């Protein structure tokens, strides 16, 4: 098991946002957490990445409890979060954003990984000396995924990569995510866009107000009445 979350509880101040959530991600999978706005999806990802403390519960990554680590140390273990809203450094160029993501790498590894990113996203190479602020939303999302590829690793957590993007761009980016997965990176994808997420993922969990209410293979979920009604608009 690559990632195993057990009975995770998280709050903001006095308000509990995640009420005892458990799920697992196996090596090589694409797993999605779908749910409406406010269901606690981002909170779960931010807690796994140690940007937010958990009240209780365990997060086991490669069998090891990472609850005592700091966010930047989790990254060094090969767990990369592509955060909600992309969080590109707008005052740095595309290249500098990628360079910074490779802070811990030696030069040969760094240029190898940046080359890989440019391979997936040639647009980023064309714009490498442009400031992050000047990129379109789709390009910023590409750069956010690219940074996670440079920090590198086994597990990529993606928080709403489709947000605010035209459907054609979402399709392009999801196609790249599939390629990245086939090259060996496990993916945990959080999405409001259940339709796209279930098309990409092998398995999924449905999250409602801080609880997992449903789980199964993507096919099962896509055909379940609840998901169809609530998330697929059928």
């Amino acid at each position: 098991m690559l990632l195993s979350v057990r009975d995770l509880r998280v709050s903001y101040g006095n308000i509990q946002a995640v009420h005892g959530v458990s799920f697992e991600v196996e090596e090589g999978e694409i797993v999605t957490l779908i749910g409406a706005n406010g269901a606690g999806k981002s909170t779960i990802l931010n807690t796994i990445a140690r940007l937010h403390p958990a009240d209780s519960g365990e997060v086991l990554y490669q069998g090891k409890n990472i609850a005592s680590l700091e966010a930047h140390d989790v990254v060094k273990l090969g767990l990369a979060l592509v955060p909600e809203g992309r969080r590109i450094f707008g005052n740095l160029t595309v290249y500098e954003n990628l360079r910074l993501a490779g802070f811990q790498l030696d030069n040969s590894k760094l240029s190898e990984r940046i080359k890989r990113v440019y391979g997936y996203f040639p647009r980023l190479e064309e714009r490498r000396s442009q400031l992050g602020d000047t990129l379109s939303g789709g390009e910023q999302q590409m750069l956010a995924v690219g940074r996670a590829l440079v920090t590198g690793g086994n597990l990529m957590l993606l928080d709403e990569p489709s947000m605010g993007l035209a459907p054609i761009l979402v399709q392009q980016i999801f196609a790249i995510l599939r390629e990245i997965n086939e090259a060996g990176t496990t993916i945990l994808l959080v999405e409001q866009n259940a339709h796209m997420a279930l098309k990409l993922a092998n398995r999924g969990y449905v999250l409602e107000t801080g609880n997992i209410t449903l789980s199964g293979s993507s096919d099962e979920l896509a055909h379940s009445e609840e998901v169809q009604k609530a998330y697929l608009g059928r």
Partner: protein
Amino acid sequence: MDFFAQQFFNALQLGSLYALIALGYTMVYGVLLLINFAHGDIFMVGAFLGVFGSITLDLPFVPTLILAMILTGLMGVGIERVAYKPLRQASRLSAVITALGVGLLLENGMLALTGADPRSYPDNIKNLNPPLLGDQIDILGASISAETIVIIVLALLLFGGLYFIVQRTKWGMAMRAISYDKFAVPLMGVSQDQIISMTFLLGTGLAAAGGILWGVAYPILNPYMGMRIGWKAFIAAVVGGIGDIRGAAVGGLMLGFIEIFVPAYGKDIGVSSTWRDPIAFGLLLIILVARPTGLFGVARRQKV
């Protein structure tokens, strides 16, 4: 012409010193949004470490400078760890008040340690005699002392070095990244604490260089010197656009030029030299009214 050239170099010297100090204010503000009001006193400690190096240890100029920069830099890192880091989540006002407290501590600590008598550097440091330069040079009809040349050149080199670090190295990228969005920095595998320490190391190290060079140029040191000079450098940083290192350099130079040229030429038009500070700060105020974010500053975007 020779009078103008003389004043020009005086202004360049004073402005370079303000700029060196202003850099520390602006760097710390850039990464922490903290106005480090202890910075002027850190500059003073740097100057006094020069006394320690040159008199107590009997070191020549360059080792004295390096020693003071390293020790002051480490002190800056220590101050951040002990006094500012615990307050990082607290309100910004608490941190600013703590900074004022640290400044008072340094000032009075130095007073207790060295007494109130003004100190100055020994002759071998006050009268630099660098190879190839001699102790005087004639430029444009003015005779410029070797110290002035050394101060200007060193300040330029230090600024160039810092600019290179900030623009070209991964450490500099991380500093700029923190100032834009500190939430995302750990996601790059970069420790915020490390970058903040590095920022303090560089900023306070430069203040120490400023302190030593100040003692070479204006050889009377006392524990209160940091307050007055530090305030001026802070104002220079704000006028240049706090958070931007080019702004600190330009703001510092501007202040130096105004402070030298107002008394130098003011008397020709009946303005006494006591008007130096009111005129200097009046001009800077006008700049701030016209450009509230300073010359190089941009309004900080509000992120949701």
